């Protein structure tokens, strides 16, 4: 994965993770694994974890500690009402941005 996509991902990773969690609850490792499967192969586990800590601090997700067979209990994250609202705002912002970029590419306004 090139430098450019890493830079672009920085601004959108939060929205991406919230979108993943809107489908179903997940723990950090699952989210990173999914992103890697989707071709974001350079994404660091720690980066996703730092983001999860942040969205938890901001009250966008609910967290449940679930025991695991191997290792410490896992923190399972699920999107709450505030998180859903935030995600909607993310999609509106995303639409705005992608429409403008598309216009630029087509040489329009």
């Amino acid at each position, binding site marked *: 994965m090139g430098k450019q996509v890493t830079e672009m991902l920085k601004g959108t990773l939060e929205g991406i993770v919230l979108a993943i969690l809107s489908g179903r609850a997940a723990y*950090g490792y699952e989210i990173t694994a999914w992103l890697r499967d989707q071709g974001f192969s350079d994404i*660091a*586990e*720690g*980066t996703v*974890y*730092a*983001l999860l800590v942040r969205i938890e601090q901001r009250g966008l997700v609910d967290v449940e500690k679930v025991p695991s067979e191997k290792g410490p209990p896992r*923190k399972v994250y699920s999107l709450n009402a505030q998180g859903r609202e935030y995600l909607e705002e993310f999609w509106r912002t995303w639409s705005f941005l992608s429409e403008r970029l598309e216009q630029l590419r087509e040489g329009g306004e």
Partner: protein
Amino acid sequence: MAAGPIERKKRFRRLVEIVTGPFEDKRRYREYKARTERLPKSYHTAIEALHRYMLYFGPGKADSLLRMLEDLADLFEQSAANGTPIREVVGEDPVEFAETFLRNYPEGQWIGRERERLSSAIDRAARDET
């Protein structure tokens, strides 16, 4: 009314803690250290290096500092349990990871005070302009 033995003990403890800092913080710190020592060698080396960096740039308040270290230990324990290689935990650029992680604990970071100072200086400059 004379203070009961528990009340006296609490008061004594408060007096001692003025000199030594809270015992609770020390206990949390020792627990964190013990957790890092139980990690496999490569994870231990990595967390020590991150810890060192984060002491320079991290929060100045004991509680946020401990919260940060505990969160870091959570990540490394989880990664060790999953067998995630160190490179995949911290990424290609460990400084970048450390900075992203540090932004979650802004309380009492000296750089935070400097950022505020910069912003308010520019606010004043912009106000004077009008």
